[in-house]
């Protein structure tokens, strides 16, 4: 039967009104008459009149037909054989159905179609032994070939699509083991929507095992193996501080269709719709919408796309809307704190507490955790540790192992020198293998002498990201009055030097992002005027790399459904969408974005990958068996008919040429 690839184009059929209007209203075409002389003639208006001649009616009919054909050509007609090739069990005696249970099977009616088609084949098949294999919740549901029809039907009702991605390769790998060892023909029927992201990396070698492969596409509608339509998705969402007492939520929306689409996006919080935004999605494009909520009133919110959609999984997304937990910092210092220790602690506390934005992302001192950290064999309960005036007390308290543990687990620490006993400090550092350098004495500015100053930052120094213009001038004007001379530095970064090239800050990087920053001067006015300067706060934050929040440091971890294996420590069921919390860690399990993609695989490529062969002849033969009869485009025939009509129309519509040659007297 004739079908149309672009049925919307049929609306252009309204154009048939044009020739009808022209027929009713347009003036008649003047009759052409050859005339002996035009010198006595002048042109005049021609009266309008309706067409009355039968020949004009034929002309009208021709024109109407022409426009109808034009409309049909625009609608891209093709001939589609009505008989479905799908239920075509071959002579194979063992047949295993492999179910794709990835998330995309929930859309486009794929799952219902899959169950219906497979059930029909199981009931129709008489001499075949059927088996079934599907992935469910990370495990494989399997029925070997030869299972009873009752078992198969029962399993069909139990299995369902999963809101996850992946699992297909495991199904493919396990499939051959479900066949019997008998010398019978074997066939695997893969029931799937063959969504591109799910299948493009799948491969197998069924041909080598003597197993035939049949692709049974579902959820493809009337156009098998073509790009599907009708899906819009929430592809991302974020929460951020929206100013005083407000939370800003934005979502990125994606339109997978090639026509513009208007959608309503609603924000649910506290069981009610708090806000609805109308958004116009460009064809095959994305757009953003924003919402605001009162801060701290709600812990969770859900974004939802309203209206009909071919694939519903990606129409919702839940997210935490609470501010992230404050990050914690602490101090280690000698029990007998010197005035310098106290002053330095005061300065650094001020620096850290002002590092966040004061509302959404904050720093607080946690003395308990700092104290607990001294006894922890592993772990990272602090986000930033500052060891002030490191000297003999550090060794006496046995703090080197917990500090190294802290650093190797990704912790960040700042160490400053003591007021005196520098040799002991150097020995402690070397002995504990924290940082290795040779102590070279103390550089101190003599009375009324020019102080030491920070040298220009080298190109590539990460401090250049923050310091420029006035702020770098402020940094260069910093007076360093005394600092420890460091010699023979081993495997350390030196982000700051004085103008003579002496290191002012040493940085050692540990695995997992840990970082130890050793300052050769103390953050007190006696050693430097840095604490009094504007550049003090950003310099400490940048040097210690504590500006950006670690996603797991009291923030929110976003996991795509089915990706739980990458976060094994979470101990959550990441096969369901939603919000979870483990201790202080907040987790969002969201829909896997790749499953929203409406593209489907090329059946030729897929068969090639699954069978492990690339013989064109064999492949085409198999495709013939798998794909429903290819549609035959008809537009050429319609175009030919339209051309013939146009030709006839031209002939008929040409002004009648008056033939004045009549029967004449033939002789004089």
């Amino acid at each position, binding site marked *: 039967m004739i079908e149309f690839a672009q049925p919307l184009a049929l609306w252009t059929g309204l154009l048939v009104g044009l020739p009808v209007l022209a027929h009713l209203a347009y003036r008649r075409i*003047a009759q052409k008459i050859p005339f*002996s002389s035009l*010198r*006595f003639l002048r042109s*005049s208006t021609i009266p309008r009149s309706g067409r009355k001649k039968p020949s004009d009616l034929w002309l009208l009919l021709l024109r109407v037909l022409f426009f109808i054909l034009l409309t049909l050509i625009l609608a891209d007609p093709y001939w589609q054989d009505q008989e479905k090739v799908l239920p075509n069990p071959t002579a194979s005696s063992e047949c295993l159905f492999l179910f794709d249970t990835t998330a995309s099977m929930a859309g486009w009616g794929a799952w219902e179609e899959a169950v219906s088609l497979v059930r029909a084949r199981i009931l129709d098949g008489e001499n075949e032994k059927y088996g079934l294999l599907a992935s469910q919740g990370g495990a494989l549901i399997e029925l070997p070939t030869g299972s009873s029809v009752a078992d198969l039907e029962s399993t069909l009702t139990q299995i369902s699509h999963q809101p996850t991605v992946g699992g297909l390769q495991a199904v493919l790998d396990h499939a051959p083991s479900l066949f019997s060892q008998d010398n019978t023909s074997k066939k695997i029927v893969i029931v799937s929507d063959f969504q591109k992201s799910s299948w493009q990396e799948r491969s197998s070698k069924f041909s080598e095992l003597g197993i035939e492969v049949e692709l049974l596409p579902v959820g493809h509608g009337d156009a098998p193996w073509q790009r599907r339509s009708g899906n819009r998705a929430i592809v991302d969402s974020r929460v951020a501080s929206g100013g005083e007492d407000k939370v800003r939520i934005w979502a990125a929306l994606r339109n997978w269709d090639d026509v513009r689409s208007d959608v309503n996006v609603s924000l649910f919080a506290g069981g009610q719709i708090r806000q609805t935004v109308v958004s116009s999605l460009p064809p095959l494009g994305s757009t953003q919408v924003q919402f605001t909520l009162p801060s701290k009133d709600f812990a969770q919110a859900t974004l939802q796309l309203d209206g009909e959609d071919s694939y519903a999984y990606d129409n919702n997304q839940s997210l935490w809307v609470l501010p992230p937990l404050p990050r914690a910092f602490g101090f280690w210092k000698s029990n007998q704190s010197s005035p310098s220790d106290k002053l330095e602690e005061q300065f650094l506390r001020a620096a850290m507490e002002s590092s966040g934005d004061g509302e959404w992302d904050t720093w607080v001192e946690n003395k308990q955790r700092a104290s607990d950290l001294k006894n922890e064999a592993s772990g990272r309960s602090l986000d930033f540790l500052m060891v002030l005036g490191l000297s003999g007390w550090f060794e006496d308290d046995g703090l080197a192992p917990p500090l190294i543990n802290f650093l190797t687990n990704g912790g960040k620490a700042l160490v400053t020198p003591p007021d005196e006993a520098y040799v002991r400090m150097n020995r402690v550092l070397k002995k504990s293998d924290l940082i290795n350098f040779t102590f070279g004495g103390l550089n101190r500015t003599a009375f009324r002498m020019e102080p030491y100053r920070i040298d220009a930052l080298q190109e590539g120094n990460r401090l250049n990201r923050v310091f420029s213009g006035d702020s770098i001038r402020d940094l260069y004007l910093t007076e360093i009055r005394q600092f420890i001379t460091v010699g023979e530095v081993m495997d350390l970064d030196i982000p700051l030097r004085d103008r003579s090239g002496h290191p002012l800050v040493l940085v050692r990087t540990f695995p997992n992002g840990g970082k130890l920053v050793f300052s050769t001067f103390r953050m007190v006015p006696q050693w430097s005027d840095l604490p009094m300067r504007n550049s003090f706060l950003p310099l400490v934050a940048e040097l210690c790399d504590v500006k950006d929040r670690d996603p797991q440091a009291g923030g929110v971890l976003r996991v795509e459904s089915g990706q739980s294996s990458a976060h094994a420590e979470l101990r959550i069921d990441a096969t369901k969408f939603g919000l979870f919390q483990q201790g202080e860690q907040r987790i969002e399990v969201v829909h896997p974005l790749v499953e929203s993609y409406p593209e489907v695989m090329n059946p030729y490529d897929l068969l090639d990958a699954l069978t492990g062969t690339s013989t064109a002849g064999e492949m085409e033969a198999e495709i013939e068996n798998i794909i429903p009869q290819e549609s035959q485009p008809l537009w050429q025939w319609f175009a030919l008919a339209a051309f013939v009509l146009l030709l006839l129309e031209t002939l008929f519509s040409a*002004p009648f040429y008056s033939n*004045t040659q009549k029967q*004449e007297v033939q002789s*004089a």
Partner: protein
Amino acid sequence: MLARVVVEGNYSGLHRSRKHGQGTEFFQYRSYEPGEDLKRVDWKVYAKSKHLVSKTYQESTHSNLILVLDGSASMGYQGDGSACSKFRYSQMLAACLLYLGYRQGDRLGLLCGSKSRADWMFPHGGRESFNSILKMIGSMHPNGEDFEEPAWNQFKSKLPSQGTVVVISDFLENENQLEKYLNFASSNRYDCICFQVIDPMEEVLPQDEAVRFIHMEGEGEVSLSPERIRNEYKARFSEYIDKLGLILAKTGAELCTLRTNEDLGFAIRRFLSVRGIGK
């Protein structure tokens, strides 16, 4: 014209200018009249029938009748209701005139064709010449534009020293040039009569509601409703014919307007009556 025929051709009737006697071309038998020259008796007939009959011969009048027949495309026009096209009518008219001339023993010449192709036959007497001219006229088809100056100049350069020139055309173009083209008519050695052949439809326009007229001799076309301009057109056409008569009168030629639905005999009578005016 009639006086000249009488003087030079022993003319004894309107179209009986034939001179029997010393000519070379056999004309007819008649009963021998006593006193006639015995050389004229056909003895073979006498031997068979025992009747004395004498042969009469036709003599040339030395009068020239030259026809100028317009074969331009516009002559091919045939309006609704007309029995024939203007050109066919002109062909018949020319044939009649030629026959008259032939009966009178005139030497017959012809200029026919159009701008693209002009055929000229120098005046000759006799049946063969008459037949050739008829054949030439019969084979013509209207095509192209009117004669222009080079054709007329060539025609005039080949004119015999005297004669009657009959121009058959629709005279719808180049009327201002006619005075120059026909200047020979002012000489008393030539008589010139111009037959203007028109189709009745050319005077009144067709009855159609909307017509696109295409010039038969050129590129132009005009779309119009004949009903809306008919009166104006008729007035202009009539005015033109009057003007044409005046122009031809200046050259010494006479204009006779004929419609293709008019009886041909009527046309001949008008022709002869025009010739008779000078009597």
